[in-house]
């Protein structure tokens, strides 16, 4: 589904990412791990189109997407969350989900102004979908609350729900467990598993804490200082000497 080949990204004199390979198959959870500052988020920003990579290829469903603008990549079905939650803070919870569905709603202005039947039925569908996902992440009661006023864990779940209403093929999560307590982290892992099992979404996950992703990942890629270090099943990675030296050893 997603294939990243020899990706590199240079900021001025700094080579933040150098020769990273990645691939995500259908129906798979892949994690990218590495210590802080290893270049994980930069990889993410390149894949999601926020940065133009300075080298390498990114293929999504066989088509080259590197250097495409971010919103176009998102429209292809790769949607991401952010390390520091980015919600539309002054908008209500349900509005956050409606914004995400704009493409499924985007009929012309006139039909909206005149409230044609077609427009109404589309609007109803998107409201239903929003309600469904709010219930799924346990935020239905808070639908009309201001998103910025939610508790941190709720904001994280809302951000994931907001991605899911766009019906992505690949969901990219940037340190989704950051700032969550163990119980919340556990819930989150179950949610991620269920996204894969029940909704057939592939997941690409960034995490700096390796233990969090061992249980749910099908495969793991480790990067360190911008360079790929190891990759394979959780067990492979756990036993990889380089990884133990560079990463687990120090922790």
């Amino acid at each position, binding site marked *: 589904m997603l294939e990243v080949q020899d990706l590199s990204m240079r900021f001025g004199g700094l080579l933040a990412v150098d020769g990273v390979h990645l691939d995500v198959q259908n129906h798979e959870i892949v994690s990218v791990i590495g210590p802080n500052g290893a270049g994980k988020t930069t990889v993410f920003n390149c894949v999601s189109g926020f940065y133009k990579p300075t080298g390498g290829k990114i293929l999504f469903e066989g088509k080259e997407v590197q250097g495409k603008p971010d919103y176009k990549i998102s429209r292809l079905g790769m949607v991401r969350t*952010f390390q520091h939650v980015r919600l539309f803070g002054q908008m209500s919870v349900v509005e956050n989900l409606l914004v995400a569905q704009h493409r499924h709603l985007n009929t012309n202005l006139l039909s909206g102004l005149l409230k044609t039947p077609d427009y109404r039925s589309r609007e109803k569908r998107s409201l239903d979908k929003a309600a469904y996902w709010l219930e799924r992440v346990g935020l239905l009661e808070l639908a009309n609350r201001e998103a910025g006023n939610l508790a941190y864990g709720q904001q994280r779940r809302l951000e994931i729900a907001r991605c899911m209403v766009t019906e992505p093929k690949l969901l990219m999560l940037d340190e989704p467990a950051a700032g969550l307590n163990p119980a919340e982290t556990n819930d989150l892992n179950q949610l991620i598993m269920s996204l894969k099992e029940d909704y057939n979404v592939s997941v690409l996950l960034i995490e700096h804490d390796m233990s969090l992703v061992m249980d749910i990942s099908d495969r793991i890629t480790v990067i360190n200082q911008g360079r790929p270090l190891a990759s394979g099943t959780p067990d492979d990675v756990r036993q990889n000497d380089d990884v133990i030296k560079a990463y687990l050893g120090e922790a």
Partner: protein
Amino acid sequence: MQDLLYFSQQLVNGLTIGSAYALIAIGYTMVYGIIGMINFAHGEIYMIGAYTALIAITGLATLGVAWLPVILLVALICAVIVSSSMGWAVERVAYRPVRGRHRLIPLISAIGMSIFLQNYVHLAQGSRNIGFPALIDGSFRFGAPESFQLSLSYMQITIFITTLICMTLLSLFISRSRIGRACRAVSQDLGMANLLGIDTNRIISATFVIGASLAAVAGLLLGMYYGSVDPLFGFIAGLKAFTAAVLGGIGSIPGAMLGGLILGVSESMTSGYLSGEYKDVVSFSLLILILLFKPTGLLGKPEVEKI
């Protein structure tokens, strides 16, 4: 020969105006460099400097003081004191309380301040333009007397020299003094400077005071050069100086100087070869083109979007 003289005349005029723009532009660029906001009221600070200088000159004339150096020095000191106090007060009242909020909020506050100051002077001193006495008269002339003569007035020379002195002092201040070094630290990383024990509030105040002082110097110089002031005196000049700052790369002090000179020359060339009416159009177009194609300006540093 004629054409060359005419061209040189435009060049001289442009460099004169341009160096004064550069003085004003420093205020924009330093404030932007430190707190990332456009100090929209800076043009008004410059206008108030010009008014204060005129008031001081008139006052001295009433008292019978006639020795030019004394008049200029006193006018300069008065203008600097009043403008820098104004700059300090504006930051305290309108900017500090909104620092760190959504980007539009400080900007709207600054626009409000600009409107307020314009009308403050308008109400106190009337809306008519008031003649500014030409204290520095005379000029050097080049070229045959019966044809076009290049004139380099003493006023223009004064503007060049004063700007040069101010810029040298500023550079020395920034590079050598304790406050200057702190200024650079704060513009690199405000939060970090705070952690290192630098009193960032004081540094920000100092930035406003320095910018306002230079604007006051420009107010005195351009007041004499143009020969009159009015409450709207600062608005267009402020926009021009901001353009100069953006042109050179906002946040960069040498950039502001370079931007001022380029802007001044391109304006006077427009006046000289097209029409004076369109010189503002040219500077605004220049601003728009720079922002579109090279938003970091000529000497600015690129910004990486943080995600």
